């Protein structure tokens, strides 16, 4: 071989590690998308609620009320204006942080929602933590023991978990542990103990789904060539699973988790009803019963915004975890 290694080839030149945009560009792109989505959500909420047949004013008043009373209420609510006008007013208010006033309680919607959001977020947070803490180890285990008893059992349990209606679980848990045994409270947010039953209820189905996702992700990664290389190097099995494989499987997993937050937020509504948990779910359900549309609208918009923000955060984490994005791979 000619010459010393340094001169022999030009391999390893300036092509290495060119930064092109990287995390900043990626996040900016997602931020713009997020804003677009929030705007979309706002529009859709607004129009859908108003386009559904049925006059809110009339529905709010007892049947048989005189037309003039109804008309008066309409004017008060602002639903007598043409739709585009209402929309513009609404948007204007939105920019000032004004989501309108509750029809029933004459308090600003924003305040009502902001008061209720923390409880829901707390519940969602504990649920996600529990779910991730249980699902990831189980999913990795299932993938590691693929085809054997551990895997089949975990899959079976996961199947059962996915099929259980969460509200049934919730009600049964209340029955067993609150009514019959009084181990845990069933009503309201009264301290750490009161988190237990609602969290388990919400998390049960989520764990079932996540286990499958983690398992599938790990199985796909374990098929890859670079795992074979690691084995050929003599890397012990545990290290392969937890470092070589999981580091790659975690990347798409993060994205899935972001989406699951939406599922959790949705499921929280039912759970809040069962356990009388003072979150936005309960607020919204009450508002629906009483036809208090501004509140419903406000809840939808705020919850959607929270979801979008969480996903934005998820995207940032994704950008950090995925070297291709972090370092700006060439197109």
């Amino acid at each position, binding site marked *: *071989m*000619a010459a010393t290694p340094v001169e*022999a*080839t*030009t*391999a390893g*030149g*300036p*092509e290495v590690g060119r930064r*092109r*945009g990287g995390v*900043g*560009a*990626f*996040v*900016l*792109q997602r931020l*713009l998308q997020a804003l677009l989505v929030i705007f979309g959500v706002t529009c859709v909420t607004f129009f859908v609620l108003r386009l559904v047949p049925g006059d809110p004013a009339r529905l709010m008043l007892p049947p048989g009320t005189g037309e003039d009373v109804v008309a008066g209420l309409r004017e008060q609510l602002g639903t007598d204006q043409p739709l585009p006008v209402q929309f513009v007013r609404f948007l204007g208010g939105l920019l000032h942080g004004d989501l309108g006033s509750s029809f029933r309680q004459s308090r600003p919607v924003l305040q009502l929602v902001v008061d209720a959001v923390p409880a829901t977020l707390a519940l969602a947070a504990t649920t996600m933590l529990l779910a991730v803490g249980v699902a990831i180890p189980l999913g990795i285990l299932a993938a590691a023991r693929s085809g054997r008893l551990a895997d089949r059992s975990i899959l079976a349990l996961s199947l059962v978990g996915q099929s259980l209606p969460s509200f049934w679980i919730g009600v049964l848990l209340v029955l067993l542990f609150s009514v019959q045994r009084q181990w845990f409270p069933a009503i309201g947010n009264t301290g750490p103990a009161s988190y237990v039953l609602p969290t388990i209820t919400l998390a049960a189905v989520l764990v079932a789904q996540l286990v499958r996702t983690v398992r599938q992700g790990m199985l796909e990664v374990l098929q890859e060539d670079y795992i074979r290389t690691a084995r050929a190097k003599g890397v012990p099995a545990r290290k392969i699973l937890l470092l070589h494989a999981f580091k790659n499987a975690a990347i798409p997993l993060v994205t899935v988790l972001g989406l699951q937050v939406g599922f959790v937020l949705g499921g929280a509504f039912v759970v809040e009803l069962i356990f009388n948990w003072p979150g936005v779910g309960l607020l919204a359900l009450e508002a629906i019963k009483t036809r208090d549309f501004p509140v419903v609208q406000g809840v939808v918009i705020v919850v959607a915004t929270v979801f979008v923000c969480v996903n934005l955060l998820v995207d940032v984490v994704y950008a950090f975890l995925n070297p291709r994005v972090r370092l*700006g791979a*060439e*197109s």
Partner: protein
Amino acid sequence: MDALLRVDNLRKDYPVRSGALRRAAGTIRAVDGVSLEVEQGATFGLLGESGCGKSTLARLVLALEPPTSGRVLFRGRDPHALDRGALKAWRRQVQLVSQDPASALPARMRVGRIVEEPLRVHRIGAAPERRAHAAELLTQVGLQPRHVASYQHQLSGGQRQRVVIARALALEPALVVCDEPVSALDVSVQAQVLNLLRSLQERLGLTYLFISHDLGVVRHMADVIGVMYLGALVERGPAAVVYAEPLHPYTRILLDAVPSVRRAGRRDRAAQPAAGEPSRAALGERGCPFRPRCPLAGERCEVERPPLRRVAPDRWAACHYAEEVPLRLPGRTVA
């Protein structure tokens, strides 16, 4: 003397997008001013390594993508200037045989149907005629009539490639673009397919644009050869002559790099290996793109990019020192 296919200074750029708003941040020049001619009934071999632009050139010739500049002239007419209806009719004359038969054939269509498909698309003949024609095509490429009912996964690699060829012939094209047609096949099967292509050419008067990275295969099929490097033609000439005495340093290096059974035993360590890998970084600047790797690079090469010039009656090379290449780069001797 009008060539069947003529390519005039063809150029194709792809934008590179980066940043948050996916703004164009520059271009990649995939095909860089290529001109060539293919005579009727001949085979033009296009040789090059990965990233040299030969597949892009194929797509341009097939009118699957529009060029950034330059023209493709088939029988004197530019397909990119045709409207949609005329273009569709034009496609009957130029067909494609591509690399991986397993992915070039739809998985859920029976072989007979696959071969009939071109006829269906162009509404040629009635159903019984199409079926008959398909069966005949299958026998022409060496398959049994019973294969009409098979699915592609039931056939071997060589058989699948024959189906691909049969499909390409269904419309009786004048020009067939072969893009790495045997690269995905076993060695013992490659010869079968190459022989088939040759005999079909003789029988049907086909013209081939034959693209490959495999020097042995191209040598065997081509009458005229073009060597591509980073999007441009660096040498062009009759196959036998180019292989025996290349006029461009890159061609020489390519030829030397091919392993040979005649050199059984340890490698000849005294000979210089080709240094480095193709680098697009050198493209933007003036001067010859091959300069960083060229053993003959001189001062002129830094500042002046050599055009593809005629060095001998039939031979073209894009090198300032083309005439000296045979002397200064004699190549590896065969033991």
